[in-house]
């Protein structure tokens, strides 16, 4: 299937003992298949700590799958994902080999990662405050008052201080997404995954959420991986833009390079179609 690709055999059994340089996230020959369909085809890329990387490309090109793999919502079919030098979906055995991760290992590595979803996914059985403090209190073991105090700070950041006692159902889509962002930040992730976070919003609500994310990108050192169709936003926040097509990175570079002088014809077509 991928005969034109120099296939390096890197199964989990003979994976290298770490990751090159200081990359926080390293996709090492990652393959993801659903049945016969190959979504990610020996994908290789790195994200350095503190950088903001945006993934662009046509629908179905595997962008969201990358985020879902990083969040451990899916399992890799081949290759290894390294986060901060640790294998994400594998654990090291005493002999130094890599085996499929168990729940304990997954919970260990997930600590570093947070995610904001396209459909917000707030918990409807909890009010806004509880949505934000639920995991800090029950997962991180934070004191309830301290968690609530931090939640108030985060709600102020996202501009929703007055909605602290609201039910998610009483909020607009844009407001729900801001709460979801606050909820993800409350876990103090090192890596924040943003999966088409404005795609489900009414057009007039998009700008507010993107402005908030621009602020967060500017004022924090969180490493960000975004999948988005908002090219203006991608240009503003990204250190690197990666163009995806059919499960591979076909081109990556600074926003200036990708948006003004794309090398690849597929990138030109894609940008031409959506800009």
């Amino acid at each position: 299937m991928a005969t034109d690709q120099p296939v390096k055999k890197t199964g989990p059994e003979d994976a290298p003992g770490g990751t090159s340089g200081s990359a926080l996230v390293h996709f090492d020959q990652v393959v993801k298949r659903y049945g016969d369909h190959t979504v990610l085809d020996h994908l290789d890329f790195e994200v350095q700590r503190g950088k903001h990387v945006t993934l662009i490309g046509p629908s179905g090109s595997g962008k969201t799958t990358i985020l879902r793999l990083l969040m451990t919502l899916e399992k890799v079919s081949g290759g290894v994902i390294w986060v901060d030098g640790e294998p994400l979906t594998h654990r090291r055995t005493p002999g130094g080999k890599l085996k499929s991760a168990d729940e304990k290992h997954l919970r260990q590595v997930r600590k570093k990662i947070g995610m904001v979803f396209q459909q917000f996914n707030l918990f409807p059985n909890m009010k806004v405050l509880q949505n934000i403090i639920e995991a800090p209190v029950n997962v991180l073991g934070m004191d309830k008052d301290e968690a609530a105090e931090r939640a108030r700070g985060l709600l102020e950041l996202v501009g929703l201080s007055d909605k602290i006692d609201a039910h998610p159902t009483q909020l607009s889509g844009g407001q729900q997404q801001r709460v979801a962002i606050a909820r993800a930040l409350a876990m103090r992730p090192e890596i924040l995954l943003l999966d088409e976070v404005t795609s489900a919003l009414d057009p007039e609500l998009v700008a507010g959420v993107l402005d908030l994310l621009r602020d967060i990108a500017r004022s924090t050192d969180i490493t960000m991986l975004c999948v988005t169709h908002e090219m203006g936003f991608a240009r503003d926040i990204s250190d690197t833009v990666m163009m995806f097509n059919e499960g591979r990175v076909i081109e990556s570079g600074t926003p200036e390079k990708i948006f003004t002088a794309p090398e690849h014809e597929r990138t030109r077509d894609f940008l031409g179609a959506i800009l």
Partner: protein
Amino acid sequence: MGDFLTAFLDNMPDVRSGLWTTLQATLYGAALAFVLSFLLGLMSGSRLLPVRGVSRVFVEFFRGTSLYVQLFWLYYVLPTINTDYEIEPLLCGVLAFGMNYGAYGSEVVRGALGAVPKAQREAAIALNMTPFQRLRRVVLPQAWPQMIPPFANLLIQLLKCTPLLWLISVQDLMTVMEQLRDRTGETVPAYLTLLVIFFVLAYALTMLMNMLEAAAKARLGQHTSARGLLRSRSGQIAGVDR
């Protein structure tokens, strides 16, 4: 008609104790069924085949064999096999009702858990919750309001099965009324009274369950009108109202 009424009033203590027995059988049976529903319903979602298998076999067995026959087995057959075995007739009824309706109830639990959107579980994973926390804090609270209408149906069906207790000589409401009918020879008023009492009991249970449902939905930010509390058919089909 007069004879029956006189006998009914004269035997009020018997009627009252019969009613109490019927209620006990219903409530204890429902309590056992409730526990089994969750136990078997959660087991059926297990990743381990043996755990799923045990649940499956139990559910298929108790759904697939008649409640009537189960009752007879517990009360008449088992004592002939093991002569040391002795069982209170009422306890026998509670066990049979509980296991039978627990089997049906486990399907309700399984369906409601499955109806919680996958995205909710994923959001809980993204917040690094443990599998137990995901179930306890996210999935169950959202599945619960969807379980209540089908649970209400099962509860009322269980209530309406309690006249079977007559067959294993429990002094329930049915048995007491049978005795009064026998004594007075007045069939119509005796069975009319039974109809009315069962209807009133069933309607009371329905409203109780409606209130429970309204409270559970309010926690999800959905609100029910006062009129909704009086309706007797079970609410929206699970999953459609969100």
